[in-house]
């Protein structure tokens, strides 16, 4: 019988399973400090995965994604803190808030492209950041809020989930990442995903092939905003703290950086990018207080010399089946 290579999707699926299994296994070998770090990284990877939908697949470079992360973070956190919402409701509220914000921002910002789009998204995000300071009576601004004990656990189909337990947090964070990756993979392989790539590659041509490019871009932004907000809401609820710094420009840059480093337009790229960048900054901050310099230098080097990122390069050079 003739040997036939496995179809690309099967290889991709196998890779996903391997990555998820490795992340699951990691919690049993990591020391406490690193287990917490990886918990955070996985949430940030969800954020970058959301960013990747817009930047990597649709080709729109936003400098304001902190507003979507912040929308999820603050909606979930404020509802839990002030209104006493349970964890699942607060999380869902955060995701919906991110999607709605993306819809509103998109209707205005998507009238622009290129550098203008970057500036408009940056401005919207700045407004969002300043709003968290302005409404300090509710948000406590920079100082932030620590979520009450009532928001540290919830009942889920009769089972009690304790969010102060590190293992629970780790696995919830992993679960969210799996859902986000499945969502992006699904979108990337769908008709909408194909339209998004067409817009990234050549928007006038996509329009002349019958695509309503504005509607596709708005869809991409809403999916992207909802995923980013899911990350923000999870961050608030898992770590029980919300503060203005999470809505600041640095988080917008981080999402961009994770995506660029790992490989824009590849499903697993932002996850790899989040891991590497987080630990790079973590290590650098042990030696210098100027660790933000690492972020800046990395950004410049990536844009100048390595625009495909790690997985993008691997896919281009060696493994075209990479999802």
């Amino acid at each position: 019988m003739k040997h036939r290579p496995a179809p690309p999707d099967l290889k991709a699926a196998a890779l996903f399973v391997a990555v998820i299994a490795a992340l699951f296994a990691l919690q049993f070998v990591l020391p406490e400090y690193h287990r917490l770090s990886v918990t955070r990284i996985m949430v940030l990877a969800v954020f970058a995965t959301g960013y990747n939908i817009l930047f990597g697949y649709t080709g729109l470079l936003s400098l304001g994604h902190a507003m979507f992360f912040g929308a999820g973070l603050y909606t979930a956190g404020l509802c839990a803190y002030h209104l006493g919402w349970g964890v699942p409701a607060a999380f869902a509220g955060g995701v919906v808030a991110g999607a709605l914000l993306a819809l509103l921002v998109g209707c205005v910002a998507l009238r622009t492209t290129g550098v203008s789009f970057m500036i408009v998204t940056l401005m919207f995000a700045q407004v969002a950041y300043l709003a968290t300071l302005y409404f300090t009576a509710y948000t406590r601004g920079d100082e932030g809020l620590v979520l009450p004990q009532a928001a540290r656990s919830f009942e889920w189909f009769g089972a009690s989930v304790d969010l102060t337990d590190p293992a629970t947090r780790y696995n919830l964070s992993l679960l969210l990442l799996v859902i986000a990756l499945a969502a992006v993979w699904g979108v990337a392989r769908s008709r909408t995903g194909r339209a998004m790539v067409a817009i990234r590659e050549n928007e006038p041509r996509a329009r002349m092939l019958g695509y309503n490019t504005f509607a596709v871009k708005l869809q991409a932004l809403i999916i992207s905003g909802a995923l980013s907000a899911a990350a923000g809401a999870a961050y608030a609820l898992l770590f029980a703290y919300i503060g203005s710094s999470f809505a600041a420009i640095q988080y917008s840059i981080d999402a961009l950086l994770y995506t660029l480093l790992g490989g824009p337009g590849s499903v697993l790229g932002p996850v790899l990018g989040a891991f590497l960048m987080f630990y790079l900054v973590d290590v650098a901050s042990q030696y210098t207080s100027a660790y933000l310099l690492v972020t800046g230098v990395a950004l410049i080097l990536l844009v100048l010399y390595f625009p495909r990122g790690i997985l993008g390069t691997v896919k281009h050079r060696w493994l075209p089946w990479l999802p």
Partner: protein
Amino acid sequence: MAAVTLLKARRLSKSFGGVRAVQAVDFDLREGEIRAIIGPNGAGKTTFVDLLCGRIAANQGTVEFAGCDITALAVHRRVRLGIAYTFQITSIFANLTVLENIAIAAQNRLPERGGAPFDAIETLRRVGLGGQENRRAGALAYGHQRLLEAAMGLSLNPRLLIFDEPTQGLSDGEIQGFCDLLADANRSTTILLIEHNMPVVMKLARRITVFDRGRVLAEGAPRDIQDNAAVQAAYLGQ
């Protein structure tokens, strides 16, 4: 048998600042024909087809396609009705494979009007790009990129296929192949092309519309146009 009018433009006009690029043009295109638009540079040919396919909005006048008024429709809506357009300057998805280019186009394909179901590989073979489906589109030779554009247009299964100077930059052999392709495509679609290469026009077109200074100067069968004194004056400056 009365021919069905596929496209009808009435008093179609477009100005850019003070330049009246297209002035009150009436134009009818019958289903199934191959029509060539010719005319000197700056005659308004490209602006006119841009108005037909919706890339720019008309100042005045109407466009009807298959009986519907499409004057106010956006580009992508017109494509979905069956108007496919290929750019004057090659416009493909250079970073994607040839097959992905076709797949993007075929996703918005009109439902079949009889005939075999869509087959991307077969479409590529038909335009002369057989065996190239996994190559990066940007790595194709220029002539092959133009063929890919044509294949993308065909993949939409359009009722009207518009080409803006399709043979520009092609070798004689490639032009011959392109003419055969258009003749073949014409079995299932109406074709409108702007073309400077007169042998191509004379060979393919059933009727020719001559533009000059934003107006229709003459229209008729190739032979009549060739003998038309006004056309000769406009073209040759006599």
